[in-house]
């Protein structure tokens, strides 16, 4: 199939999609409309369960099973990446050259690390109250750890990042979510049902199981991103293919 022919097929497909999509837009409810039956009911249900951030309530209470699915996709893709980027037998590790970083950047990195970590934990902990939660806060925490590579040095990062515990934390986060859900079964309700007392509205302990599931997701996401980036960093900076690989295969 020539490139020209392929472009023609592509143009045809894109034009057809554009035409159909524009036609569909005309039939969609108008932007900013006042009718949101699902939204109104979700807000009502979240307030009944004393969860101030209704988005977290939808994620970790009303549709907690969906989030378990999403979390499993995350877990599986991390697993896949780890397998794909592992060191194979025909590769060896080299010690990366330290790259010069200006003193000013180094100082900033060391000061910003605890601040970023704190902000990440704050975002996770307040997930059921204000915007934020395990998914967002976990990524911020993982970014904080990597400030060591970005602003200081790769070897400084390696010292605070023994990979084993992070891999265990990743699995433990996923397991904690599943087990908290099973707690619902033990209490005689459905899987992932919100069985804990709902607490006082707009306090850290409100929302029943929402803060627990939120924290489990936070742990998993943070550990997952650290593990992911560790693999990419290892491949980009340390692992090298053997020179005689081509001859061995041929």
């Amino acid at each position: 199939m020539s490139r020209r022919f392929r472009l023609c097929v592509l143009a045809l497909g894109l034009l057809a999609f554009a035409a159909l999509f524009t036609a569909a837009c005309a039939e969609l409810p108008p932007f900013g409309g006042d009718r949101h039956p699902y939204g109104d009911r979700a807000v009502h249900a979240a307030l009944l369960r004393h969860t101030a951030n209704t988005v977290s309530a939808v994620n970790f209470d009303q549709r907690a099973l969906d989030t378990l699915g999403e979390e499993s996709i995350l877990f599986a893709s991390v697993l896949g990446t780890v397998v794909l980027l592992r060191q194979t037998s025909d590769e060896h590790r080299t010690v990366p050259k330290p790259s010069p970083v200006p003193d000013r950047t180094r100082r900033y990195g060391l000061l910003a690390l605890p601040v970023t970590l704190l902000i990440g934990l704050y975002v996770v902990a307040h997930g059921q109250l204000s915007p934020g939660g395990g998914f967002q806060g976990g990524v911020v925490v993982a970014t904080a750890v990597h400030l060591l590579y970005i602003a200081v040095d790769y070897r400084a990062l390696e010292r605070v990042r023994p990979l084993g515990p992070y891999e265990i934390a990743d699995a433990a986060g996923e397991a904690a979510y599943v087990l908290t859900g099973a707690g619902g079964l033990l209490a005689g309700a459905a899987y992932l049902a919100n069985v804990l007392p709902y607490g006082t509205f707009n306090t850290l302990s409100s929302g029943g199981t929402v803060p627990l599931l939120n924290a489990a997701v936070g742990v998993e996401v943070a550990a997952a991103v650290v593990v992911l980036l560790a693999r990419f960093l290892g491949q980009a900076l340390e692992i090298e293919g053997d020179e005689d690989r081509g001859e061995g295969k041929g």
Partner: protein
Amino acid sequence: MDDVLGGLALLFVAAAATAAVLNRDPARQALVLSLLGLGLAVLFTVLQAPDVGLSQLAVGSAITPLMILLTVRKVRRIGRGRQAEDDGKGRSR
């Protein structure tokens, strides 16, 4: 005022998406992608979805560019390794 803000954010996002696709060099694309992430975060906030905006910011500002740039570096290193290998073979023949 809401309409103006929303329109501006939408146009910014559309322009950033187009620019991200038209920058064919992956490293430079990563830079435009990070701007697209920032634009999306503003758009989500204007659409009153700060949770999603926060998610987009956390992922788009540092993690995704870092992964793309590390991949680019690895791919280039492989390319250089192959080049050196081929040169070596050519000389020995």
